[in-house]
């Protein structure tokens, strides 16, 4: 067993070395993890309570006490961005991971059993894919209402199709592989073949798809909140902070109210995408 152990770790080691060499991907991984930790430990970083209203210093430009200035209610934008990160990242990560899990399970079932199940699942995925994404989200918001958990529900309902396709294709091709026949010959049950043998092979594309989905959902949460349909208004998220930027007056005079949240969203999504790309190159055998 020891022999097998070393081999496995060296694979991970090798992938890690390749990842490290890809400078952009490393940058992505570092920046995104840094931002995640900054959000989680927000209360250590900023003394201010994000929702504390303080009429004495309303809409002040960035200064030493308030790194990103204050909004129209005197709330510190920097702490809003940090605390906002918690919800935005939480919603996107959970949404993406759940979406991938559902995608993998359904993909596995459709790919492995084929026939009727496969047909139904593929048709449903087509129906979901046929919907223009924004339209589907808008209707689901009207259907389910606003709220953090509802948003997560919306994200994984609109996000399972890509992982589903990937896993299904992987299954269709792997199903004919000889080692699968060998497992069957040994009398290993279908379920364990699916989950112990075939699914591990699909982890690499799934990881890439999940990272890209996380990046997309951050954007979508921001977009929805910008339209006023996202997470409830009083919960600070990156989108809600940007909501203030809808009025031309804010765009004109209070540049820090939209510049910093916008930059933060862009940097995080950029980092996630770089990490995703890096992951794809590392795990892609051909590279």
């Amino acid at each position, binding site marked *: 067993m020891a022999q097998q152990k070393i081999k496995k770790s060296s694979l991970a080691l090798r992938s890690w070395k390749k990842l490290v060499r890809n400078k952009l991907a490393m940058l992505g991984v570092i920046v995104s993890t840094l931002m995640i930790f900054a959000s989680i430990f927000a209360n250590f970083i900023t003394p201010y309570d994000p*929702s*504390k*209203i303080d*009429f004495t210093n*309303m809409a002040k430009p960035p200064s030493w006490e308030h790194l990103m200035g204050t909004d*129209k*209610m*005197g709330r510190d934008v920097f702490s809003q961005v940090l605390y906002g990160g918690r919800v935005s990242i939480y919603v996107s990560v959970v949404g993406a991971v759940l979406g991938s899990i559902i995608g993998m399970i359904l993909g596995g079932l459709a790919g492995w059993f084929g026939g009727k199940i496969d047909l139904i699942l593929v048709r449903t995925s087509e129906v979901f894919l046929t919907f223009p994404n924004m339209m589907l989200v808008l209707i689901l918001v*009207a259907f389910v*209402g*606003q709220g953090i958990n509802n948003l997560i529900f919306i994200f994984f309902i609109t996000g399972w199709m890509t992982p589903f396709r990937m896993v299904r294709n992987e299954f269709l091709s792997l199903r004919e592989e000889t080692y699968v026949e060998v497992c069957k010959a040994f009398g290993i049950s279908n379920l364990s073949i699916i989950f112990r043998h075939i699914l591990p092979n699909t982890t690499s594309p799934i990881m890439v798809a999940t990272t890209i989905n996380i990046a997309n959902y951050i954007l979508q949460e921001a977009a929805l909140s910008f339209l*006023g349909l996202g997470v*409830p*208004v*009083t919960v600070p998220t990156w989108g809600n902070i940007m*909501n*203030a930027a*809808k*009025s*031309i*007056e*804010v765009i*004109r*005079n209070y540049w820090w109210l939209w510049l910093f949240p916008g930059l933060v969203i862009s940097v995080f999504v950029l980092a996630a995408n770089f990490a995703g790309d890096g992951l794809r190159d590392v795990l892609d055998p051909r590279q």
Partner: protein
Amino acid sequence: MKKNRIVLAAAILFVVAGTAFTAENALYLFIPTTGATMTTKLDHPWVNRGDLWKVLMFRSLFLPDPTLTTVSSDLASSYRISSDGLTYTITMKKGPTWHDGTPVTADDVIFSVQTALKAAQVNAIYTGVFSHIIGAADYISGKTSSLSGLTANGDVVTMKLDTKVGNAINVLGQFAIMPKHLLKDVNPLEFQNASFWTHPVGNGMYKLQEFNPGNYAVFVPYEKYDGPKPKIPKIILTAMTDPISAAQAGKLDLYNTNATDQISELKKIKGFTSYPVDITFYRYFVINIKDENGVPNKAMADVRIRKALMYAIDFKALAEGLYPGLARQIYTGVPTSFSAYDKDAEQYNYNPERAKQLLKEANFDFSKTLRLRFYYGDQTSINFMTAVAQYLAQVGIKTDVQKFQGDATTELYKVKDYDIALKGLSAFGFEEWYGEYASDNSNFINIMGKDGYFDLKVNELRATTDPTKRAQILLDLQRLEQKYLYKLPIYTMQNIFFVNTAKVKTTGVFGNPWFNWDYKFADWELK
């Protein structure tokens, strides 16, 4: 060398295209392009009566003064009210004609009142009066094909009411008369969406010259107008994204708003003068106290809890912080600047200790989260509600603040999934504010129950016109109001008119922008 020549050329092209617009010799008005405004047709005047182009396009029987207290003649030359106050005899003028030349007659008045009674989208101040015309109920239910209490012979209209209505004449000063010969085939229920509104024909000083749906409408003086001839040759109503850049670009001359961010911006623009107007535009909390069959909402049923809310929130600081110079704090339905205001009404100054004590007295269940809701989309309202949530948190009340998912009317009176909701009311008179307490209000009984404590006084108010009697009735109503505290009054919001005085000379006297009043537009002129 070649490369930057191209860039230069492109820049010039942009600049030229950007200023292709030449300022025409006209008065520019503004409609925001958000929502469905003006997408396919113009808005009808039976809900919002106050837009300048509606005032100039459509006349009512009488023309109120800017303070909406007195009326002068307009389509009608005079009126007489019988001693018992139930019969109104109104004599029509001969001169007025519709913009297509046909004369305005008493039949138009009868047609308009009957259509209003059956219309789906109409301001309640009209139905408030017309529903008291004798035979109104039968007419609405379809038993009779015409209103028995409203008759016309020649140019005299007689209106018989089943009870005295104090503000009847004032309401008739708002009610726009519609052309019978153009609208008689339209089903009253679909009056607001009739194709008439793609090219409306009015009877006022100006007529519609051109309408480009979704973009702009142009009005010019009506040559056969029987009143004083206006000096402004053209009025242009444009749909634009933002009033401030429009004003800067010289595409906006008259605009009214109560949005703080727009006000601070418009005040900076050269050549613009601001005219603040005090109006009964209320901002207040409605409370989900009990439903129409009296089942109370435990969290809010006890009046001491509602009193505690008034003490717990520093409305004064919020007014100065969020609505500087706009919001005036109110403690009853009557603003403090009005003579009828009850001087010894309880003035809830910010007193968190008193609030906590009241909450303890009413053994308020602190573990429960109060549901705070609102339906306005602007950022200032969102900030207001988050601030309120924070004040309540300081007295130990947990709150969950959200914007209503559905439309306000459904959420406020049918779904009722809330404890406290921020509401607005643009009232014509005190009848609207106190009408909400009456048990005949089909919406508010769902959240206040049908006790009817206010019914007697409200009906009295509705019936009297005499100012001194009304002042006494208002005093009683204010006392009732403070006793039950069914509604938590917060502010009346001032409205500010901005005029490009560098280009337009006006009378400088402005009234409530939501209603019809005499702009004396004939004296306006372009410099």
